């Protein structure tokens, strides 16, 4: 009894919290300290310029920032369409005995390492997309808007499709669970008003729009930060026209993975890459704030 009063076990437990806090603080500190030299030199310039010329120690990573945002946004659009569709299919149409299989398959898909997705994307998805989607479309005359695909098929578009495939199982699960959790009396009330199934589904989707927002933010966060899979299919080319999505490009993550190894041969490249990481830090912070404010916990 006496010992307990002197040495509250629970106070010792607070050590675990301190370790977590310390680690987050240290990570942020390292990012800030390592980016300071380039911030002091260039300020916000690297965010708005697209020159990556280590020979002259010029580092503007707009092309990679743009690439990150474009890939993630495109991936979001595709994955939202896919995940809402498949969640509705699951909750409203799929016979019960298939549900178990589909659910397990999707849950498994969500746990497959991204680098395995990357390998598959490189060897299977890229050639398929190039032959059946990107080339026909650019032949149709879209090439001045979206660029021409390269022979390998790696491009910003490919990366965003791969990302969409990767995040859909998770996003779909969030929407699916909420759809299934809609109380049956609400559904019955809607049907009793004489609405068709499609109209009911539309209303149900409106009813769970918070979950859809959550799924959106989670997908976007994953997509923006994913490295290994993207680095394998995005092409890793300094592409100033990152909006021409059939051309290969860079994302911030793949820029770091690609350029960091050689960075310390220069004075500022390392700092520039840390700066780009810091920018990613703020992007994912913003997404987290959106999630905390408006989303639901998953």
């Amino acid at each position, binding site marked *: 009894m006496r010992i307990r009063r002197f040495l509250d076990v629970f106070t010792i437990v607070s050590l675990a919290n301190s370790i977590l806090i310390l680690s987050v603080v240290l990570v942020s500190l390292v990012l800030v300290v390592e980016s300071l030299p380039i911030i002091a030199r260039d300020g916000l310039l690297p965010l708005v310029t697209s020159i*990556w010329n*280590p020979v002259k120690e010029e580092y503007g990573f707009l092309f990679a920032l743009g690439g990150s945002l474009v890939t993630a946004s495109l991936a979001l659009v595709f994955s939202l369409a896919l995940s809402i569709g498949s969640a509705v299919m699951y909750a409203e149409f799929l016979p019960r005995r298939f549900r178990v299989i589909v659910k397990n398959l999707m849950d498994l898909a969500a746990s497959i390492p991204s680098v395995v997705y990357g390998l598959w994307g490189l060897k299977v998805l890229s050639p398929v997309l190039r032959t059946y989607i990107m080339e026909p479309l650019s032949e149709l005359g879209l090439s001045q808007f979206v660029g021409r695909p390269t022979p*390998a098929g790696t491009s910003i578009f490919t990366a965003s499709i791969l990302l969409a495939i990767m995040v859909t199982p998770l996003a779909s699960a969030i929407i699916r669970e909420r759809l299934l959790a809609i109380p049956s009396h609400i559904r019955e009330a809607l049907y009793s008003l004489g609405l068709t199934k499609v109209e009911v589904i539309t209303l149900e989707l409106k009813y769970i729009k918070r979950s859809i927002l959550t799924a959106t933010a989670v997908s976007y966060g994953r997509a923006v930060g994913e490295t290994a899979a993207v680095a394998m299919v995005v092409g890793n080319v300094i592409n100033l026209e990152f909006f021409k999505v059939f051309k*290969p490009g860079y994302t911030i993550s793949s820029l770091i993975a690609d350029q960091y190894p*050689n960075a310390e041969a220069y*004075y500022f490249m390392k700092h520039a890459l840390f700066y780009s990481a810091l920018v990613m830090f703020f992007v994912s912070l913003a997404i987290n704030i959106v999630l905390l404010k408006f989303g639901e916990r998953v």
Partner: protein
Amino acid sequence: MEHSLRSRVTKTRRLVLIVGIVLVLSTVGSLIVQKQISQTETATVNPQPESKTTSRLVYITGGGASFINPQMQAWIRVFMEKTGGTISINYQSIGSGAGEAKWLEGALDFGASDIAISKTGYEKLKESGKRFIQVPIIAGSVALVYNLPRFSEAGCTLRLTGETVADIYLGKIIRWSDPRIVELQEGRCRNFLPDAEIFGIHRSDGSGTTALFTMYLSLVSREWAERVGYGYTVTWPRDALGLGEGARGNEGVSAKVQATPNSIGYVELAYAVQLKLPVAMLRNRDGYFVYPNATTVMEALRAAAKELPGPQEFWGDLPLKHYMNREGRLSYPIVGTPAVFMYIDLPKDLADALYEFFKWVLTEGQKPENIVEGFIPLPEEMRIKALQYLELLKPRG
């Protein structure tokens, strides 16, 4: 009471599960350990005749140039088999710049680069006062590869000069039919050059290959030296015209050239050989058009070997003057010697292990059976110098 019986049953089941997992894990683990031990045992049974018997396992971490990675992995495998695993060498291809930088930081036991220690690196070394050596271990050269189907079918080989290559990548030569290119070709072949735009492909990731290639261009073209310069990563003027594009790694560049008609690119010779891409001839300093191959590369390096600086001197820009564009009828102009960097005052077992490995690399390792297809061993003159440099690694007294 009945319930306690039941809960004991579920507890037993859980116990069985845990025991099962532990068993599987420990079996795998012990198999691995056993393998290690058996390696060590064979080592003690068959001690290397010359080596000072290192009873402990020594683990060496190295990293750097991706170009030499295949050759390095092959060497490591053979060497580890020969020494029975007393020395483990881990080489990761992280790029030349990283090889130098991480070695300087002390994160690696040895660094490897397509080029020599950079000026910044050399300054850092001087500041720290640490003693080091740099030793060439293999010959390297950059080949220009191209994709001109009709031209190749006609049995022709592209001939280029340094200046035209620089002008192509500078965007000053736009089409294959440009007179500056046409006039270099053999008479019959001039008609087979297409009147099409040249698609210039280059590395997008930082690489020693790019460093070698741009060094050469800086040497032969004043305009290149002023407008672009040389380094692991440069900005490519041709890209701005929409006539150029980057690709990742030697394999990316070769794949892209292979798939894109009317394109040109540069890769390490080994990759061109392996993928059987058409390789251009370059005009050397003496005015002869030469292919990159064992003879021409070794010829160029033989000339350079005479002026190879000491192991602790600043090699810095020297490859530019001394390796590139050498005299000699048979010299190929873009060559280099990928080198490894090591500190001298290391713990004894580590120094011994490094010495043993690189000594093997510079003797047995240079024999044809240990050279990976497409790679070229060091010429004899260079090899002997390298061995001399390596001797510094042996602890004195």
